């Protein structure tokens, strides 16, 4: 199984500012995924991050709002830019494992925008 560390675990931010969330995996993985869970809701995929190429965003999410970096096979960052209270959510990174038959999640970053 993959061990995923996310930082920070939680933060309270002022509107209009940006927060960068880090995701570190204990093994090399091809793809990393970023999800958002709004309060009381399910998880929605934001984007897929591959090393060496630009992230692929799902419908409703754009690079200007959620820029992603993937500098190597064990690390990725998600930035939430120009935040508003509507961005208050849990953000989770995920990786595949077990030859593509498992999906592991980090502990999540709980973001509150005031």
């Amino acid at each position, binding site marked *: 199984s993959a061990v995923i560390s996310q930082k920070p675990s939680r933060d309270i931010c002022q509107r209009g500012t940006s927060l960068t969330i880090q995701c570190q995996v204990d093994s090399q993985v091809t793809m990393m995924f970023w999800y958002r869970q709004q309060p009381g809701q399910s998880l929605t995929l934001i984007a*897929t991050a591959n090393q060496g190429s630009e992230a692929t965003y799902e419908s409703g999410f754009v690079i200007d709002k959620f820029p992603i970096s993937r500098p190597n096979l064990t690390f990725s960052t998600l930035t939430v830019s120009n935040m508003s209270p509507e961005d208050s959510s849990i953000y989770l990174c995920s990786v595949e494992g077990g030859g593509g038959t*498992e999906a592991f*999640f980090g502990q999540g970053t709980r973001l509150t925008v005031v």
Partner: protein
Amino acid sequence: ELKVEQNPLFLSMQEGKNYTIYCNYSTTSDRLYWYRQDPGKSLESLFVLLSNGAVKQEGRLMASLDTKARLSTLHITAAVHDLSATYFCAVDKGNTGKLIFGQGTTLQVKP
């Protein structure tokens, strides 16, 4: 567009009772996942179902997959309070690793 629907969305049950959570999805997929989420926590992987007819059991939970009906079930046997949590099913979109989640089922087990 792949859609995943769970029902019920909320389930309140007495300890010792049995119940089933249903997960329907709209397009073909070979991978279905069940997760548990406790309040304020991340996701805990419960089951991965990879083929038609797959059945997996862990303690009081049993999950099955019918790919022809595009249906998975999570059966709870003799519920205990510790099973109180939100349960999500998720389907792999075209075996890409991208997961589409159901709405979640919040289970409350009363003593």
